[in-house]
């Protein structure tokens, strides 16, 4: 497969489009957990029940169009190759739990990959809407509309007092998990993040690194989400998260300005060194790649680097993960081989920027 072709099919809209505040907020996600009456929860349902649920959704929704999101396609976990599943996980379209521990799991995926409905994960269904930038309210509206549409065909488990009934009591009520992915390099560099995270936890929100198997937030990318699902309306949950995210954006912007002021050319140097590594490396581990990508992205946001699209961080953080690298290579790779592939893919992606730029100049 040519790089451009691979690249164009690999990148979903939410990764390559820009949204509000997308210099700092990479994406917004809403997830709604729902269950259907008359079936036991996936905790202990029979394989017969599991198959009936998949069949119900296949019959009712597969191949149907939904607004601007395009047609839904049903993907059964049992029919996918391990690499294919991994790619879906890396794109945040399904959870690792669905990919690995749900033998009767399936996913209804919209053509534009903004909507994915996980079937037979921890709950019967989990509706997910992913939007670029900070668009929590928009994503909630989209998820809620989709929820209404689905509700027209199935009977949701709902209790007047407890709300939507979920297999785990941590999700009962709204079944809502709202989250944003944020790039916070300046708060990390200035170490302010260390006091900010506990403060955010105090407010009933969860902060964690989005990437990285080890112990850190690779690429300085953090995921912030709500913890409480009961006793607050969906709108309030989202509004409260939005408020905190806006404060974080302001703090990150202030920290960036402070860094520019105090470090000046040192910061510019750091950015361009990282660019140099990415543009020339022949072998690179995911940790180093993530740090360099974060630096380059910061350099783009600060105006040091021009003519490279901002999405490079978001895209390459995803495309340089093991699943994608192996899909690009067309087969399994050992870790050392992945590091070579990763370097090649990053260089290709940067060359693509140069080509785009030249085409732009000719016009």
């Amino acid at each position, binding site marked *: 497969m040519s790089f451009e072709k691979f690249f164009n099919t690999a990148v979903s809209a939410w990764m390559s489009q820009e949204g509000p505040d997308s210099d700092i907020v990479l994406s917004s996600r809403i997830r709604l957990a729902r269950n259907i*009456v008359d079936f036991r929860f996936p905790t202990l349902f029979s394989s017969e029940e599991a198959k009936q649920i998949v069949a119900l959704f296949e019959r009712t929704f597969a191949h149907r169009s939904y607004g601007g999101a395009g047609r839904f396609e049903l993907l059964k976990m049992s029919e996918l190759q391990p690499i294919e599943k991994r790619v879906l*996980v890396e794109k945040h379209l399904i959870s*690792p739990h669905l990919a690995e521990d749900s033998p009767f799991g399936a996913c209804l995926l919209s053509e534009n990959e903004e909507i994915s409905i996980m079937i037979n994960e921890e709950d019967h269904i989990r509706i997910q809407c992913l939007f670029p930038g900070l668009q929590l309210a928009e994503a909630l509206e989209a998820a809620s509309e989709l929820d209404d549409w689905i*509700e027209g065909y199935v009977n949701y488990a709902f209790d007047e007092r407890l709300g939507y009934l979920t297999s785990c009591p*941590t*999700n009962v009520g709204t079944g809502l998990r709202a989250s944003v992915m944020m790039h916070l390099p300046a708060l990390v560099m200035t170490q302010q993040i260390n006091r900010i995270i506990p403060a955010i936890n105090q407010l009933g929100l969860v902060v964690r690194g989005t990437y990285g198997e080890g*112990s850190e937030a690779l690429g300085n990318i953090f995921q912030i989400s709500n913890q409480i699902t009961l006793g607050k309306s969906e709108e309030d949950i989202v509004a409260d998260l939005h408020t905190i995210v806006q404060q974080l954006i302001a703090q990150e912007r202030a920290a960036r300005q402070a860094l520019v002021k105090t470090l000046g050319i040192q910061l510019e140097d750091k950015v361009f060194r990282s660019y140099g590594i990415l543009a020339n490396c022949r072998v690179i581990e995911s940790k180093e790649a993530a740090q360099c990508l974060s630096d380059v992205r910061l350099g783009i946001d600060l105006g040091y680097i021009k003519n490279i699209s901002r999405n490079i961080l978001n895209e390459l953080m995803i495309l340089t993960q093991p699943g994608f690298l192996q899909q690009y290579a067309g087969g399994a790779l050992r870790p050392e081989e992945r590091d070579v592939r990763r370097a090649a893919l990053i260089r290709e992606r940067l060359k693509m920027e140069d080509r785009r730029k030249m085409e732009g100049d000719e016009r």
Partner: protein
Amino acid sequence: MICQECKQRPATMHFTKIVNGEKTEFHLCEQCAKEHGHMFTFYGNDDFSLNNLLAGLLNFQAPMKEMTANAFPNPDVLQCETCQMTYHQFTQIGRFGCVNCYRTFARYLPPILKRLHSGNTAHSGKIPKRKGGVLHLRKQLATLKQKLQELVAREEFERAAEVRDQIRSLEDELRRRGEGDM
């Protein structure tokens, strides 16, 4: 920040757990979080949930058991008729087996829900359209009544009067529907 368990690696997993009404913070590295799997388990990279935390949390339920021993039958013998899950199993895995489990274990749920949801025990969000009708009206009524109290407290009597009228017409509507249903 350094992991509070091993005191070596940086802490990347941060959560607040409310135990007996008191907030406790945990800052762990991923390795330690994994090692303490009985308390913190993760679904790999994504959509980490507190779910598994709960199983651990429920195992520390001794005080509640003592407290409820006299008032209620031993909860461990409770069993859901629909899915056969026992209350004991529920505390082990931290998940319900079916919708009916919520009813079967109802009297033991409020303290658990309070702990998980900052003291909340009742839903105040979306209602499925299908349930709509009367339920929607009742929620609307509750919201208006609260608004009325606030307005009165702030001595905004003119607006309070408007809200009171809305409440009356809603109550009329509910009464009409109630009669219609019967």
